[in-house]
């Protein structure tokens, strides 16, 4: 059986105390809402509304185009103002639907489904697909695909990824504390799809109250257990959490399903619950707005499409000038040069820091100390990979298994010479993956 952790990893300052005790608060958007057509992995969604159309909250405004894709729903009522390229967190411009909020929040009539026990497996998967649910931990992979593996009978475990190993993030934690029944409910719906599977709620040990609560609520569920995991980054990385909970290990060319596992993050499972039990598509998510530049760090339930400026305002604005603003956590998030971007399905946090380690610390020569080798959860040799990347040496890069890198950032974090290991390996990986696709 598994040892509750993986080999490697780091212990960065976790910053969770800033926001962990702040209850989830709803944010009502004031300005326009922006819906990038590509906020998931796969083909961008196709708009089914046009400029000037009136839309209701919960109305589909873009539909999936192709198999790997996901529809998008309006999260307010109002008028379609434009369909134009807008900036997103990755700094790219993405074709987006812009809706002017009329402030009425008129809703569509959501479909009423039978209780999930009476729904067929195909019906459940279709509901999840139609609701536009994607992996909300950051990857944005359409969830219905994960829920339809080739051999559903061979799935042994459905793992709820409650690790929340990224520093500063407390959105999953608040969800577990405040709405654990939705998480457990969503997990039960997922288990309905896999006859031979057991459900595991995998939580890092730094959330003992969440572990106790989930244990209490699942004590009469023979098929669901709570698995405490060692607190260590990146415990919540998909391959790491599968290994920590089941002892099974997969590499990049395998899917979790190949190891008999389905992994989804807390907010994703709650979205499945909302879709199946309430007929509601994916319209909101929990975002932690935090960092030492924020006056009142908080956890918000945010409508997809809400502008980041509004989230900062809701958190009391800045108490100090931020030097770096990150969408997501400090290990894997995107640094923003402009706050004028919308909340998407995969935005877990908005982190505002008064200090930027990266520009404060100058890279120096590699002394081959081996710390990157020690911490790499993919068990690679990052310093050699960085050299291969800088030289554009594809052959060595592949020989050193560079494609197995999960871009978690441990090597750059730990490097005493402050070298941008992750960055160079990541860009080389992108080029190699692009070559592979051709």
């Amino acid at each position, binding site marked *: 059986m598994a040892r509750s952790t993986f080999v490697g990893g780091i212990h960065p300052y976790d910053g969770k105390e800033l926001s962990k005790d702040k209850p989830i608060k709803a944010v009502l958007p004031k300005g326009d809402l922006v819906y990038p057509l590509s906020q998931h992995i796969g083909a961008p969604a196709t708009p089914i509304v046009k400029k000037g159309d009136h839309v209701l909250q919960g109305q589909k405004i873009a539909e999936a185009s192709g198999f790997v894709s996901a529809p998008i729903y309006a999260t307010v009522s109002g008028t379609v103002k434009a369909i134009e390229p807008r900036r997103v967190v990755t700094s790219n411009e993405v074709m987006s639907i812009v809706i002017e909020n009329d402030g009425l929040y008129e809703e569509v009539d959501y479909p009423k489904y039978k209780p999930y026990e009476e729904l067929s497996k195909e019906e459940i998967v279709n509901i999840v697909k139609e609701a536009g649910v994607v992996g909300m931990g950051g990857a944005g992979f359409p969830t219905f695909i994960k829920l339809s593996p080739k051999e559903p009978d061979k799935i042994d475990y459905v793992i709820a990824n409650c690790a929340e190993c990224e520093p500063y993030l407390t959105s999953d934690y608040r969800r577990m504390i405040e709405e654990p029944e939705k998480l457990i409910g969503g997990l039960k719906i997922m288990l309905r799809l896999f006859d031979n599977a057991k459900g595991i709620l995998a939580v890092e040990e730094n959330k003992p109250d969440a572990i106790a609560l989930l244990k209490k609520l699942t004590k009469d569920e023979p098929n669901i257990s709570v698995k405490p995991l060692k607190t260590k980054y990146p415990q919540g990385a998909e391959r790491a959490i599968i290994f920590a909970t089941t002892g099974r290990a997969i590499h*990049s060319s395998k899917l979790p399903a190949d190891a008999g596992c389905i992994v989804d993050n807390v907010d994703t499972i709650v979205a499945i619950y909302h879709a199946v039990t309430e007929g509601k598509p994916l319209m909101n998510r929990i975002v932690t707005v935090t960092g030492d530049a924020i006056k009142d760090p908080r956890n918000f339930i945010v409508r997809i499409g809400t502008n980041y400026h509004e989230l900062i305002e809701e958190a009391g604005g800045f108490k100090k000038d931020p030097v770096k603003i990150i969408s997501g956590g400090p290990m*894997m998030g995107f640094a923003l040069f402009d706050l004028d971007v919308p909340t998407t399905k995969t935005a877990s946090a908005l982190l505002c820091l008064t200090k930027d380690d990266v520009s404060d610390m100058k890279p120096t020569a590699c002394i081959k100390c081996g710390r990157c080798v020690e911490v790499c959860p993919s068990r690679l040799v990052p310093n050699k990979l960085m050299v291969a990347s800088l030289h554009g040496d594809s052959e060595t890069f592949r020989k050193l298994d560079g494609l197995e890198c999960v871009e978690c950032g441990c090597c750059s974090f730990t490097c005493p010479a402050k070298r941008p290991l992750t960055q160079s390996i990541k860009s080389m990986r992108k080029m190699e993956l692009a070559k592979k696709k051709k």
Partner: protein
Amino acid sequence: MSDMLKVSSNPHVRSNVTTNAIMLAVVIALLPAAGFGIYNFGLHALFLMIITIVSCVLTELIYEKALKKEVTIGDFSAVVTGLLLAMNLPPMAPLWIGVVGGVFAILVVKMLFGGLGQNFMNPALGGRCFLLISFTSIMTNFDCDAYTGATPLAQLKAGTTPDILKMIIGNTSGTIGETSMIAIVIGACFLILLGVIDLKIPGTYIVTFVLFISIFGGHGFDPAFISAHLAGGGLMLGAFFMATDYVTRPITKKGQYVFGALLGILTGVFRIFGPSAEGVSYAIIIGNLLVPLIEKFTLPKAFGKGGEHV
């Protein structure tokens, strides 16, 4: 809100461990042994240390200034090299020996190969071996005010058993920094506690060496013989402070065990079968040369391809 935000690729946070801090920790860890050397051999030992360190730092500075490169003496790596080299000199060696050794170590072994991180051989040991070959009589003369005659290892080689307690404390002749096993181990413990070094290389090195001399030393498993070999000569200083030099040891975990074992065997061969009583310096620099090969054959397996458990 300020107009300009910093933007960079992930991750956005860094640990507070820096190269400078690591090098400084090594300097601090060497102080007990260096201090004992001064106590044991007198002020001349201190002067040798100072002149060697200054030579190393100045060589790096002048080289970088002359070639209009960024000045890197602030990282303390030249200080580590200078101090280690001085600790490997005989206590009464003339001061110019420290200067020649320091210049060679930094200029030839380190800077000409690209500076910190690029040298293929431990600079301090490279310097020492250069001096040993070039100025053999000076480098092998351990007579000083406090001690005359053979070093404990030389006595051992000649067939007499030296006083082991004195060897452990360090009241014997030898190079400035190698005599006190206790002082060296105290410094090594400090580095291990800080996580700067671990026991993989020193542990394998020492265990392999003990096995080797037990089998080939001609005394069988004789505790007195083995402890004299462990406490004598440069073994402790070499195992904990020079074999563990990041730049010149394998970066792979398996490779570090192979490296340690190799050093144990080489040291055994040189001490038992070689003409000189010593063998650590040569063992380590030969080991250094084999590092690229060792790394090539000990690359770890990736997670999911068999590497997930180690």
